[in-house]
């Protein structure tokens, strides 16, 4: 807790940017249910649980054509 209090100017922007990326990816996963590989049940945990890298992997490798 002490560390969180001391370093909040770092953690708040980090969490915020991770949140924006994860939510954007989640919206895309839900709206475009045709993926290059994998299923909805696979991509939702990937974009939500793997910080930063999950959404990047989804957008680079997983997204299907619009």
């Amino acid at each position, binding site marked *: 807790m002490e560390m969180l209090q001391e*370093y909040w*100017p*770092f953690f708040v*922007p*980090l969490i915020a*940017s*991770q949140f*924006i*990326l994860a939510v*954007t*990816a989640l919206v*895309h996963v839900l709206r475009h249910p045709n993926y290059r590989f994998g299923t909805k049940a696979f991509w939702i945990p990937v974009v939500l649980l793997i910080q*930063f890298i999950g*959404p*990047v992997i989804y*957008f*680079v490798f997983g997204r299907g*054509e619009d």
Partner: protein
Amino acid sequence: MNHFHVFFKKELRESVRTHRLLIILTIFFMFGVMNPLTAKLTPDLLAKFLPEGMIIELPVPSSLDSWAQFFKNVTQMGLIVVLLVFSGILANEITQGTLINLLTKGLSREAVITAKYAAMLALWSMGVLVSSLVTWGYTVYLFPDGKSHNLVFAVFCLWLFGAFLLAQLVFSTTLVKSSYGSLIITGAVVVFLNILQVFPGVQPWNPLVLATHNMELIGQNLEPSFFARPIGLAFLGCCLLVVLAVVVFRKKQI
């Protein structure tokens, strides 16, 4: 020139639509925050995980450690993300057939290549700018020691190396059909540059030093003039690769 302008705008809009811009900005922003934080917390974390009673002398972190993190992260993860994000930039449009319409309507092929390269450069520049500004801000906040010098020049060297790799990526996308093929060629070029480092005669010319010797510049262990030849060569390389890409793409059947 007009074709270039129109196609460049289209590329930028596409970068927003395909979330390329968002990915690059958030990832580079994250690096910007993480670099100083990692530098600050690493000694504390090490001390916590040491066995009871064991004492080792841990150096006090300085702004140099923060910038070392910056150059490590941006040259490794940062460049990998940028290359991955852009790897399909030409291959996808060819396989989807969206380029055929534009080209038959008279869009020049030079415009396609140069506008794509310009859009890549624009996004890469934004990423480097965001990451270095955020790192700089937090570094001044955590380590106001004034030990880091030549920052703008060191970041410029890294930026130029990225521009060189992106030119390489553009050229390789004109050679092969798949987006992975272009990545493999670009990766092979980096490996090749690394091998060249072994030969002392090549070292002062190798563009790779633009991404590996930045910390010597910041710690003032190297003169900025050391980078003159690699900078010249990287710049020439960018121009040459883009010209070659145009030449190959003109002859390519789509």
